């Protein structure tokens, strides 16, 4: 019974989504820095031709542009610096599923099944005790353990997927911003276009950054909530009564 919340696809598919996003962010950042410099240089080198009112207005627009850009560049540089540990998160969410939940679940039917079916001829109090009081709690504990592994796998995976979404969203938006800046830089090569190019880029980047950050903060919210809810989710999802006193059920004296 595959669970819709459990890790889907392969770990490498998701780790490469992060790596690809990071690569694109890096690529766009280089472009943004070059094109923004070109734009500012064009404005500066033609400063002489501009009237004081236009100069004042351009400076103001450039400051707006830069502060919007700085907000999103902070996100980008943080992602470039911090993405590696999240790759482990993805891999480990799959390990809980494939290297723990799967093999542990496979043990469950073997606990119940007698090694030799003729053991059914074993009768009396010892047999009754063994079949009624020894096997069931062991089997129940194994199933609860598999459920625990499955739960934590899903929990990590949901956080991992929010991270993938975060990077993908950020890299798409940074790509759009880079495109806007590139065309503004190109327009600014013609002196007469400079005020218009700067006006347009300040507005466009402002809007893009605002939208992007709102989207990103929505994703961040889900990650924070996952952290806050974990204890409650564990108790809803895992039957801890199968572990008396929090321990593995003990059936053997001594």
């Amino acid at each position, binding site marked *: 019974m595959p669970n819709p919340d459990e890790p889907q696809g392969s770990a490498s598919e998701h780790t490469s989504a992060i790596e690809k996003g990071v690569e694109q962010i890096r690529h766009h950042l280089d472009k943004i820095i070059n094109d923004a410099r070109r734009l500012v240089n064009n404005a500066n080198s033609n400063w002489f031709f501009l009237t004081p009112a236009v100069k004042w207005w351009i400076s103001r627009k450039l400051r707006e542009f830069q502060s919007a850009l700085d907000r999103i560049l902070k996100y980008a540089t943080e992602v470039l610096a911090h993405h590696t540990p999240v790759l482990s*998160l993805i891999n480990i969410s799959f390990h809980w599923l494939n290297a723990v939940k799967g093999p542990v679940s496979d043990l469950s039917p073997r606990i119940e099944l*007698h090694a030799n079916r*003729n053991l059914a001829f074993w009768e*009396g109090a010892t047999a009754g005790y*063994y079949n009624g009081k020894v096997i069931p709690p062991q089997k129940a504990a*194994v199933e609860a353990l598999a459920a625990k592994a499955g739960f934590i796998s899903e929990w990590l995976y949901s956080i991992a997927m929010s991270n993938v979404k975060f990077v993908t969203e950020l890299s798409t938006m940074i790509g759009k911003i880079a495109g806007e800046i590139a065309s503004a830089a190109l327009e600014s090569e013609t002196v007469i276009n400079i005020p218009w190019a700067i006006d347009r880029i300040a507005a466009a980047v402002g809007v893009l950054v605002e939208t992007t950050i709102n989207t990103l903060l929505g994703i961040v919210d889900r990650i924070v909530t996952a952290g806050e809810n974990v204890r409650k989710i564990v108790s809803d999802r895992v039957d801890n009564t199968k572990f008396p006193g929090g321990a*593995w059920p003990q059936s053997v*004296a001594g």
Partner: protein
Amino acid sequence: MTDPATTRVITDHVREEADKWRVLSDDMGAINKNPIGNNGLELGSHSFFLGPTELVPQEMHFRAYSGFYDDVKRLVAAAVTEWHQLGGALDRQADEFDRTDQTVKADLDKIYREPVP
């Protein structure tokens, strides 16, 4: 008719059953060896978010996860031990059956423990 307090057994099958638990113990032992007990599932306090660190209090995720992982480590190691001991208990049971010519007045307390409800 057998007296309910006595047990008719084929001791070989009880020994096979003992081996079953030792094999189960070994198989759980393999999971314990890798990835449970060797910290193969360990995550750091920065593994939960790749964006600006101040946005997500990852210490919360880290502590919840580490506590959970420690619990699982403890349970898995205990299962390995318990199943190995169950193998031994069944062997002792078979020995008792042999000693008493396969019919024995059950002395459960000597071998098993009542499960905690």
